[in-house]
């Protein structure tokens, strides 16, 4: 077959297909989302969006115990959520091969921290592979299944943003025949009571020794080059940066398997070179292990712990060569991401800002409510934290503070881990107000269905979680649904609910403006004669409203005619125009 361009994530999905995977369960998270989305094109693979990563991992573990090759995919922080089942799956081992694809985000293009997932492989005592490009994404995924079944271990496949989202050439093959394995009841292996787990732990440590021996011989770990004085130990995207920077001026120990490490191979490589650098983004993972072996390598004393590396950085550090100065440009205004024109969240944040409330935020497009001019959000920690954090703040500062405080959380994030926080509010007598920003989709990761949308990952109709009933069922008496574009109603609802002496839930309901079935049309227009230049509309932070020559104007290339600005203009100076 002719090679084709695929992003790393689609190549992982192809690898899973070629390895005969039968079950894939994930929760979306940039930069991992497209792996599971790409699985949808293979009709014989069961795939699902689970409510969160923990459930997704449990589904994959169950499928593996049931005899199928299975996969779960997440971003680095999603791995925290699934850590509990995964650590114990490290003890039970597998029946059908089990792969956990985890995508780290050095440079935090779309994340709240920069954690390094490699530590999980060591901590969970499971092997980890790390591809550098799309061809390796495909090949290593297949290798991961072979490894998983050979060593009776879940296997991590670690990507980074640039590997997950870069396209490079891939040659496809026909899928392997991986029949469903027999399922036999085996409580000593799969029921992790202390007595059984004590015995399994022995197997786990034996397995690690066997994997260390495998690491020495596998072609996944290769030495590239022919006798340069400089040695570079690296893995994944760092290998490509190092090759770009140094070419044949260095030899490379490219680790395709980053845990467990091939200690002898590493030691031989270091000893064969005058100077050896460990070039790895984020934490000194390989470096610390090399130094613990007593090897003389240069790592984080020269390279930063922060963000992404570049070839220029590597050239400067390793060769002392600085690239020619680039053309100069004077500082230009930044262009941060903003809520889209027509975004339903804009109405909610306009009201929250106007009322001057303290806002515990969450993870989603609406995190952008922290940016000027809406500038509403006080805290953002992790998925679901808006509710627990607000309860904690209220308990710390008392009911008067609680009456000037709200949580905002999206529909998908609420299902992911907000519901448990809400139960805590009810159970422990909080009086918090929670606003569920229900835009009928998982927005930030690019429109995935979730339990509140009534559709599966394949677009099939299914039971829809009713947020109103759910809130009532856990004990919230005050539940109301408001259209966030009706800013008067929204303002009234928020004022009443924060003042109440019991907990409340406001469901701010309006679908994401980018959904295909949302048909705004035409665009808005400012009547220059009626406009008093009060600039109330500019408080919306709409990318389609701007000021030219001292007057508010609508940029028709940006406006989608949602009409929110028409609703907030006190002088009726903004009107809708048909296309």
């Amino acid at each position: 077959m002719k090679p084709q361009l695929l992003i790393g994530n689609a190549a992982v999905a192809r690898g899973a297909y070629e390895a005969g995977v039968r079950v894939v369960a994930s929760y979306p998270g940039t930069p991992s989302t497209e792996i599971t989305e790409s699985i949808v094109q293979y009709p014989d693979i069961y795939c699902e969006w689970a409510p969160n990563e923990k459930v997704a991992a449990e589904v994959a573990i169950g499928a593996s115990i049931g005899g199928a090759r299975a996969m779960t995919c997440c971003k680095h922080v999603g791995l925290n959520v699934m850590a509990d089942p995964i650590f114990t799956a490290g003890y039970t081992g597998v029946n059908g091969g089990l792969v956990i694809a985890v995508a780290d985000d050095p440079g935090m293009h779309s994340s709240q921290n920069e954690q390094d997932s490699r530590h999980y492989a060591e901590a969970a005592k499971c092997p980890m592979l790390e591809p550098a490009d799309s061809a390796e994404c495909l090949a290593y995924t297949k290798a991961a299944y072979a490894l998983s079944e050979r060593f009776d271990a879940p296997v991590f496949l670690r990507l980074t943003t640039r590997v997950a989202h870069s396209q490079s050439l891939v040659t496809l093959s026909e899928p392997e025949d991986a029949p469903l394995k027999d399922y036999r009841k085996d409580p000593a292996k799969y029921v992790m009571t202390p007595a059984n787990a004590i015995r399994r732990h022995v197997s786990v440590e034996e397995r690690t020794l066997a994997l260390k021996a495998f690491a020495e011989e596998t072609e996944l770990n290769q030495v590239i080059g022919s006798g340069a004085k400089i040695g570079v130990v690296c893995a994944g995207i760092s290998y490509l940066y190092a090759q770009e920077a140094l070419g044949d001026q260095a030899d490379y120990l490219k680790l395709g398997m980053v845990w467990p490490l091939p200690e002898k191979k590493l030691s031989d490589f270091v000893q064969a070179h005058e100077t050896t650098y460990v070039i790895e983004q984020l934490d000194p993972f390989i470096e610390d292990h090399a130094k613990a072996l007593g090897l003389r390598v240069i790592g984080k004393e020269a390279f930063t712990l922060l963000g992404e590396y570049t070839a220029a950085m590597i050239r400067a550090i390793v060769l002392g060569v600085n690239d020619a100065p680039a053309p100069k440009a004077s500082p230009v205004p930044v262009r941060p991401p903003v809520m889209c024109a027509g975004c339903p969240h804009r109405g909610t944040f306009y009201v929250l800002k106007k009322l001057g409330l303290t806002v515990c935020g969450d993870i989603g497009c609406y995190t952008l409510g922290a940016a000027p001019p809406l500038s509403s959000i006080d805290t953002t920690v992790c998925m679901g934290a808006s509710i627990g954090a607000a309860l904690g703040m209220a308990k710390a500062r008392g009911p008067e503070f609680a009456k000037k405080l709200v949580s905002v959380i999206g529909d998908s994030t609420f299902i992911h881990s907000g519901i448990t926080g809400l139960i805590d509010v009810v159970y422990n007598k909080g009086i918090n107000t929670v606003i569920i920003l229900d835009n009928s989709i998982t927005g930030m990761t690019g429109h995935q269905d979730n339990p509140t949308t009534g559709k599966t990952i394949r677009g099939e109709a299914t039971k829809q979680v009713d947020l109103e009933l759910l809130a009532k069922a856990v004990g919230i008496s005050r539940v109301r649904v408001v259209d966030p574009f009706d800013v008067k109603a929204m303002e009234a609802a928020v004022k009443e609910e924060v003042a109440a002496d019991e907990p409340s839930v406001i469901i701010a309901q309006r679908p994401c403006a980018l959904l295909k079935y949302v048909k705004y049309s035409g665009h808005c227009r400012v009547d220059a004669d009626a406009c008093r230049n009060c600039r109330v509309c500019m408080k919306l932070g709409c990318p389609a409203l701007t000021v030219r020559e001292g007057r508010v104007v609508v940029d028709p290339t940006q406006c989608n005619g949602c009409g929110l600005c028409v609703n907030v203009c006190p002088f009726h100076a903004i009107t809708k125009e048909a296309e």
Partner: protein
Amino acid sequence: MSNTSIMIVGVGGQGTLLASRILGNTLTQAGYDVKVSEVHGMSQRGGSVTTYVRFGEKVWSPIIEKGGADIILSFELLEALRALPYLKPDGQIIVNTQQIDPMPVITGAAEYPQGIVETLKAQAKVTAVDALALAKEAGSIKAVNVVLIGLLAKNTPIPRAQWEETLRATVPPKFLEINLKAFALGYEQE
């Protein structure tokens, strides 16, 4: 043969992803080793977006670094200025003269720089075109991306027919005519 690096920059929502797909597929069909890199997620929400396209005999890094771009294709004026440090000393800039105000300009915290085309011309070879007007002429303001691909195509060694073939394979049939017209308007610009 050394590698060629093309950087596509613009504002989230302008259709840079489709442009990079057309470019990547055309280069693949032409038999090059190709790498295309872009970041999805947060940056799509009206923020600055950047795609790196690198091709040649063997490409290692998918990333274009400062001073590394042979061509910068910018969908918006300010974004061209932002990308300028990435241009090679003898590089070329193709820029759409459309102005989209970023939020700091909208809130009054910053001013949109004036005379950007002149600033660019002082340091590089620049082709500045009102691609929005050409897209309207082709039949849809959404075809800005394909007008710009047309402009870019003329500056590559790949024959016109091959680009049009990729367009046929990439664009939904009902938008094909508009897109072919948009491509032609870009390609035929002086």
